[in-house]
């Protein structure tokens, strides 16, 4: 078992076009580091100065991680992570 991470269209250049990839780690931060190992460059699109980017949403089992600890949110095998850029503008 692993953690499935759903990748939005705009970040699939980092995953060779894959819509979902597997990753491992006990926290969201560790999962992102694991992703970065296999898909270099993706971390910078998600994290800025140690914080989740303002206009990137990440969900763990349908919960916005901002409500469950942010990058320190705990994960376990079988969890599903979804990354979605905000739909926003001015």
């Amino acid at each position, binding site marked *: 078992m692993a953690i499935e991470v759903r990748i*939005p*269209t*705009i970040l699939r250049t980092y995953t060779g076009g894959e819509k979902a990839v597997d990753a491992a780690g006990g926290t969201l931060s560790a999962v992102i580091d694991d992703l970065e190992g296999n898909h270099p460059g993706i971390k910078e699109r998600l994290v800025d100065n140690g914080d989740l980017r303002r*206009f990137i*949403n990440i*969900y763990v089992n*349908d919960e*916005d991680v*901002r409500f469950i600890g942010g990058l320190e949110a705990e994960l376990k095998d079988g969890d599903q992570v*979804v990354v*979605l*850029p*905000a*739909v*926003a*503008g*001015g």
Partner: protein
Amino acid sequence: MLTIDQATYDGIVAHAKRDHPDEACGIVAGPEGSDRPTRLVEMVNAAGSPTFYEFDSTELLALYKQMWDLDEEPVVVYHSHTATEAYPSVTDIGLASEPGAHYVLVSTREHGNNDGPVEFRSYRIVDGEVTEEEVAVVAALPTT
């Protein structure tokens, strides 16, 4: 070129007029790869602002899960400008994250909540580059 049916076009315009002076926002979903905007989904502007729009993060996830279940994608992403022209702002360009979508801008600056024509324009926004495209409003989308 964006080809859109009259009812969907009218729905977007009505939404923009109703929410004026705040920005209105939403999408038109369609079958993946079809370039056919078939299902209008009005979203709440969580920012509730005349100068900014943002989908609520929980509603955003629900919307995308629904599209994945239906093998759909956002064919059109629309929002209104309520005091300026229907052209993507610097913020719009910086945050555009659907390179395959038609970005529709409606400006309600002239008539606000009232009847009357609006600017309705469509763009591709890819890697920070904006390309305006023609909008064809048809009675019904051609069957493929």
